[in-house]
């Protein structure tokens, strides 16, 4: 999920750490959102059983896959628009 961070040259040590920190924060935010969305879409809240049944398990697996695909599509779209607008790389969504 580290797609927001272009290859900016010559960062100070503090900046490098802060960037790595931001990447991890972004990842764990995405993870929390995925847990929330996929649980809501796949888990039967009557909780008749304590185990995930077959349908729920398959749904969760596919949900992760689709969530990543949406993330990828959105990031590609925004990169495309940023490039169309801004020209050169190095920016937020610059490749």
């Amino acid at each position, binding site marked *: 999920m580290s797609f*927001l961070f272009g290859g900016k040259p010559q960062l100070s040590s503090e900046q490098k750490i*802060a960037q790595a920190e*931001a990447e991890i*924060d*972004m990842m764990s*935010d*995405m993870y929390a*959102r995925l847990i*929330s*969305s996929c649980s*809501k*879409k*796949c888990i039967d809240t009557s909780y008749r059983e304590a185990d995930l049944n077959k349908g729920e398990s*398959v*749904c969760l*697996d*596919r*949900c992760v*896959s*689709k*969530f990543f*695909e*949406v*993330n990828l*599509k*959105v990031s590609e*779209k*925004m990169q495309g628009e940023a490039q169309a607008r801004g020209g050169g790389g190095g920016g*937020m969504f610059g490749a």
Partner: protein
Amino acid sequence: MDSLTQAEQRELQNRMEKKQMKEFMNMYSNLVQQCFNDCVNGFESKSLTSREESCVMRCVDKRMKGSERLGTRFQEQNAAMAQSGTLPGR
């Protein structure tokens, strides 16, 4: 806020820059989650259907336009309130 010295304003600026990055990332992941929630409802396969994919694309477009419009109106209202002095607490 207008009573800050230049040095204080620079320090404030510094702190805000970190937050802006964070807010941008939050805006981004919120967009992903919203469009996922609104457009993806079938789990018969592990890939997006073309219907879901185009829904996601329109969702991103529409929501970004919506946020832009809301942002403009928000600033206008803020400016109007600041001018008319209806800001309570001041």
